[in-house]
């Protein structure tokens, strides 16, 4: 057997240069591609956010016309969701899953290559629409008809790129499931899997179940626009609200696709730096699964104001409130993990702790939004913008940053500069709050979202938010600088970079070998 493997290694002729990256089927290479691509998209989407915040710095229009402003809000969301957060999680899955379950690689390496290389093409097409004469998509990332049907020539391009992104996600999800279910080391039963593996397994099922629904919805938009159907146009006997139901049947699971892997990361980092086992492993798994199941029966809380029947409004209010239970269990478990631990506060831990606090604040506003009669006031205001940015930026994005700091020594064999990491943490955390906390206030005071200009009483908090946004953007340049410094160093990191870290990946040398585990480790 081992002779066989040695033979394989000899046969492994690797192309160099660009072809190495284009043809690679290695989970680490592909993981890196995903992560670098995600970082790039994070800055592209961030630049759009800064255009938005520059325009909203004061009332009156200073920089852009309303039509372009709408293109920016639409593209910012699409880029951040499909280009930054999702690929980052897939990148982390690629790097970590094989190492965590004791496998040599992902189960379907060629598929893996393909699911990554779809992305650059899809985003090139998506971004190219900004240079069309009629501009990019401007109907919001939710693409509600009839407005989205009025759009210019960008529409079919946007839909095609969304199809590609969906295909990429589904392929990635199939690969994750195939890997986790087939390639675990002997002895690693499902309930012994690292929690990050569990959250990704559940996320993968959510992807497979929800992405085709999005594909269906946008295909119907396409045929409405070009082939004379009237799925969503009232004049032809169609129903504009139907689109919203289908979209959010995808959209709500999508929300959890963006956060469940983050839960997994935080559940890995908190025990490591508390030097204590994760509290309530089983209930963490069950809570994750319940959140995933509930995500399919809460979709209409995104559209409480469309005029649903009373019974519908009550049903979706109750199911939405129920999500607070498993989410609460998770937060309590994290706190219980820290309780009577022996904590240290390196950069990944700081980001994980900030995640717990700030994500919980986003959870609280989520609970408020679940209350239908109150939601009639909050809906489509900056309160909602504040809510979802709290769960996505200090939520998902913080978890991704924490994961990068945590596993960077394993990936590269090089330790980042701890002082700079902490500076990055504090700047990011302070600015993220300066940016998004005031949005709660203007939202409650009555400022609608997706407007390029506002009444003068909203000026002060908008100025503060804009200052925060630029600060946040600049802080992320420090992150790039830290990565650059780290990569320039010689290899010095120990195999087990963190005293309290647990898991098979820490039994490998740092940097981890190209084919993680040639022989499967034994899990007792």
């Amino acid at each position, binding site marked *: 057997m081992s002779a066989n493997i040695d033979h394989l290694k000899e046969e492994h002729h690797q192309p160099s240069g660009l072809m190495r990256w284009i043809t690679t089927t290695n989970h680490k290479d592909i993981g890196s591609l995903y992560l670098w691509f995600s970082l790039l998209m994070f800055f592209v989407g961030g630049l759009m956010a800064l255009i938005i915040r520059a325009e909203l710095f004061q009332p009156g229009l200073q920089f852009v016309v309303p039509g372009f402003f709408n293109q920016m809000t639409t593209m910012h969301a699409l880029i951040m969701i499909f280009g930054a957060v999702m690929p980052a999680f897939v990148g982390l899955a690629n790097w970590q899953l094989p190492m965590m379950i004791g496998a040599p690689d992902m189960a379907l390496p060629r598929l893996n290559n393909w699911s990554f290389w779809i992305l650059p093409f899809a985003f090139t097409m998506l971004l190219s629409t900004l240079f069309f004469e009629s501009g990019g998509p401007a109907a919001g990332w939710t693409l509600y008809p009839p407005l989205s049907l009025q759009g210019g020539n960008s529409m079919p391009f946007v839909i095609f790129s969304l199809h590609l992104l969906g295909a990429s996600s589904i392929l990635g999800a199939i690969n994750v499931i195939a890997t986790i279910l087939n390639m675990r080391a002997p002895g690693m039963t499902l309930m012994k899997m690292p929690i990050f593996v569990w959250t990704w397994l559940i996320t993968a099922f959510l992807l497979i179940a929800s992405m085709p629904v999005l594909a269906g919805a946008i295909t119907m938009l396409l045929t409405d626009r070009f082939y004379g159907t009237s799925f969503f146009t*009232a004049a032809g006997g169609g129903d504009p609200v139907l689109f919203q139901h289908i979209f959010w049947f995808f959209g709500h699971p999508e929300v959890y696709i963006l956060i469940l892997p983050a839960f997994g990361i935080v559940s890995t980092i908190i025990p490591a730096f508390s030097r204590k086992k994760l509290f309530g492993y089983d209930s963490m798994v069950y809570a994750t699964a319940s959140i995933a199941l509930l995500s399919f029966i809460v979709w209409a809380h995104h559209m409480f104001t469309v005029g649903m029947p009373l019974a519908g409004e009550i049903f979706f209010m109750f199911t939405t409130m129920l999500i607070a239970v498993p989410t609460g269990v998770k937060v309590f478990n994290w706190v219980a993990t820290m309780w009577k631990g022996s*904590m240290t506060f390196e950069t990944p831990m700081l980001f994980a702790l900030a995640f717990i606090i700030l994500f919980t604040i986003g959870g*609280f506003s989520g609970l408020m939004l679940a209350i239908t009669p109150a939601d009639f006031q909050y809906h489509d205001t900056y309160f909602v913008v504040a809510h979802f940015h709290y769960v996505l930026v200090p939520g998902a994005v913080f978890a991704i940053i924490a994961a990068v700091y945590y596993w960077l020594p394993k990936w590269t064999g090089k330790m980042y500069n701890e002082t700079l990491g902490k500076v990055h943490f504090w700047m990011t955390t302070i600015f993220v709050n300066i940016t998004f906390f005031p949005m709660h206030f203007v939202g409650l005071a009555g400022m609608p979202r997706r407007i390029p200009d506002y009444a003068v009483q909203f000026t002060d908090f908008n100025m503060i938010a804009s200052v925060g946004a630029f600060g946040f953007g600049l802080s992320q340049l420090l992150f790039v600088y830290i990565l650059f410094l780290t990569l320039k160093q010689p290899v010095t990191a120990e195999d087990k970079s963190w005293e309290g870290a647990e898991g098979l990946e820490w039994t490998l040398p740092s940097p981890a070998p190209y084919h993680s585990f040639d022989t499967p480790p034994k899990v007792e």
Partner: protein
Amino acid sequence: MKRLSVFLVTMLASLTTMADWEVNMPRGVTPTANAAYDLHMLIFYITVVIGIVVFGVMFYSIFHHRKSKGAKPASFHESTTVEIIWTVIPFVILVGMAIPATKTLIMMEDTRNSEITLKVTGYQWMWKYDYVEDDVAFFSKLDSDSNEARQLGSKKDVNKVDNYLLNVDNEVVLPTDTKIRILLTASDVIHAWWVPELTGKKDAIPGYVNELWIDIKKPGVYRGQCTELCGKDHGFMPIVVRAVPKQEYTKWVSLNQKNRVADKSK
């Protein structure tokens, strides 16, 4: 550089002259808006208490159970009892929230026994109002002062415009102490009609007729905006409702029935 200095000056000016640090939802002037406000505050206070408890425990742990203070890690990692307790308690709290929320919701959706009906139709980018019983109808759009000031590169100072972006050419006039049913629809894309002090919003959707009801308890002028993205001028189709005593309203109706001809053709 010049732009920057203009920014700084406006920022300072706005901080001193028109500081309006409103951080909360306004209290309403209708039973429905007030009920929403009360629910909002109730849930807010509950989450504040939960937050204090959870973050309190967390920060206690962060300060006391740290390695630098010589803390040794305990070895416990599960407790079925504790886990059941913190599943059940949140559930009970949720039931406590759900009861008043459901009551309020049922009250809000009960549009029966209304005295007058106002039909609101959303257009890109203005509103049309039809007083169904009284045969009054007109369009209402952003007033010309705001409209000039909002243009890119406009020299007009928005801070000097009366109710910038929240002023219209034709106000909606409604009687106080009357149960008013509002019917909502749209002619092109989806809009949403929202005046925070009067009621929560509801979408105006082509092919649909949605319902709302309000009963204004206090005369005054109430302002709101479209709250569903409806195209490039989504931010520029405000709503202004002037609530007047019933007598005055009757007078207004009779005046406007005579003058309605110009708009009727539309």
